[in-house]
């Protein structure tokens, strides 16, 4: 009898457990004090995260993703109600067109004045009315190379990635849009082309490149370059700057054909349940100290004008971190693909990986 009772209670507990936890989620005490953040991997200094929680008393549930398409998939899966997200320009444009963004209350962001007006203006490409975004970092896509294995002349053109001399010494970027951009630049086409013939040509070119590629990487690129496992890698400028910190043979360049300028920004999605906390978060990211700490961790160009005062001249003159006007003039922002083109390129990417 005792046993029976015991098992009866265990069933009760089993079946009640989901209900208990569900009500737990909905309770107000937790709701006002949490914030669910979604950001790129390796894109914040852990101390900043800690300090935010300590100073505001808000518990942050911090989640990361690697590729921008992963972020979209995570968000669209709908199982987590993200409060604030950081992602790249063209993805923000996609979400804006899908009406997934909530306007930001700029008056509640005292530190917003720290943000460089020029970058805000450049953001008009994906946020034309300037209601939804606050820039976080920006940078370029280029080639990080080891000057002991490759000379500067070779990497001045994207052609370097198709050079048989560097078979198994080339790291290609593991991101469909950026990989496509490289091939399109080499062909001399617009990086935002939706012409299927041009995209097909770019795909063929990437297939030809595959036999020279050591690996398709993204967050592991700089480790691979530091250990000199590869001679050159297509990567983001910050990834390059981080690698150059550890290995003095590494250099970074944006090839002459041109590349991509990207701006990563914070925005508030429709799923937001903690709007005030989200505003506090965005404001905190614009704060002088937090922005400086983050900058010294990720090494991307910061739109925060207050950071420069904390850096030495060498850093400020570093063209990898802060692209020159000449470099920027060769770079373009991505425009969001329409559904058809997106599916088409996603399919090409899959074919390339299976090739």
């Amino acid at each position, binding site marked *: 009898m005792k046993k029976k009772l015991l*098992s009866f209670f265990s069933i009760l507990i089993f079946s009640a457990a989901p209900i208990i936890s569900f009500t737990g989620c909905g309770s107000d005490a937790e709701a006002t004090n949490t914030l669910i953040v979604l950001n790129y991997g390796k894109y914040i200094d852990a101390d900043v995260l800690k300090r935010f929680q300590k100073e505001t008393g808000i518990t942050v549930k911090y989640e990361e993703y690697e590729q921008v398409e992963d972020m979209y998939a995570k968000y669209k899966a709908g199982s987590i109600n993200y409060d604030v997200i950081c992602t790249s320009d063209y993805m923000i444009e996609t979400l804006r067109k899908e009406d997934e963004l909530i306007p930001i209350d700029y008056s509640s962001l005292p530190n917003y004045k720290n943000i460089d007006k020029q970058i805000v203006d450049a953001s008009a490409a994906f946020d034309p009315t300037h209601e939804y975004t606050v820039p976080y970092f920006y940078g370029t896509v280029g080639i990080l190379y080891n000057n002991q294995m490759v000379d500067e002349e070779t990497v001045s053109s994207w052609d370097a990635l198709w050079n048989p001399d560097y078979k198994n010494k080339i790291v290609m970027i593991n991101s469909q849009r950026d990989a496509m951009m490289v091939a399109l630049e080499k062909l001399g086409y617009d990086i935002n082309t939706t012409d299927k013939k041009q995209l097909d040509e770019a795909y063929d070119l990437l297939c030809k490149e595959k036999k020279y590629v*050591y690996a*398709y990487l993204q967050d592991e690129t700089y480790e691979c370059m530091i250990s000199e*496992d590869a001679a050159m890698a297509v990567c983001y400028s910050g990834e390059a700057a981080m690698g150059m910190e550890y290995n003095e043979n590494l250099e970074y360049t944006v090839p002459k054909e041109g590349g991509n300028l990207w701006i990563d920004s914070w925005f508030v999605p429709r799923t937001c349940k903690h709007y005030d906390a989200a505003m506090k978060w965005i404001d905190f990211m614009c704060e002088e100290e937090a922005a400086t700490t983050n900058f010294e961790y990720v090494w991307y160009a910061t739109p925060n004008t207050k950071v420069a005062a904390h850096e030495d001249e060498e850093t400020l003159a570093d063209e990898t971190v802060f692209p020159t006007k000449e470099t920027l003039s060769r770079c373009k922002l991505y425009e969001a693909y329409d559904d058809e083109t997106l*599916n088409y390129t*996603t399919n090409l990417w*899959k074919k390339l990986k299976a090739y």
Partner: protein
Amino acid sequence: MNNRFKTSFLAAPYALWVLICTILPLLYILGYALTSSTGSFTLANLTAIADPVHLKSLWLSIKVAFLTTVICLVIAYPVALILHNLKITNKGFIVFMFILPMWMNFMLRILAWQIILSNNGILNSILSAVGLPTLHILYTKSAVTLGMVYDFLPYMILPIYNALSKINDQVIEAAADLGANWLTTFTKITIPLSKDGIISGIIMVFVPALSSFVVSNLLGGGKVLLIGNVIEQEFTLARNWNLGSGLSIILMIFVILSMSIMNKVDDSENGGMLV
């Protein structure tokens, strides 16, 4: 009556577990697989396996899983035999030694292989130190196969070792008494009697190897696209859950097929032995 009531009562938590963690997810997958993104019924997600990209990665998965299984078997059988013949009284210790690496996180163990196999890795440093040409292994199919063999080997050794432990030594002695040499005893007695272990070992290696995607992610450098990777990317990158589910169902069919073939082999040989 009372007893039966008690049994079904006690089984309830497990039934609930199976319902929530096995049956419901399967129904969900089936539901996604048989519908299009707009929700209408379709078989397109299942027939999508005929797409050259999917066929190619399925074929590659089968090849890699087969090779992994064969290599595991070739390594595991002698190891199990040696372990069995070692006169150690504490058999639990042996099992412990093979389970020990599993205490470490699986991702960590595979990441260690990255460091060993990379262009300037440990292996190539040793090779160049002794004057041998270096090898390009990391981010190839060989690296993926190696990672899988390393990961799945214990699942092959343990069942074979178990089966060998169950063989009555007197049977071996009887064979020797009747004039069988070592080789005959091995092929006519030891192998048939350990067949159950071999078969469960094969299933335990082949099935997870067929659907694996983590090893190829870490050691394939984005160049080795197994069917598991295709499914993973449909769920994440391409966010086409319907296609991902459809391909999962196809993969499940392949798993069931390979398991039933193995069971067939098992049955027929049992029959053969009776005759």
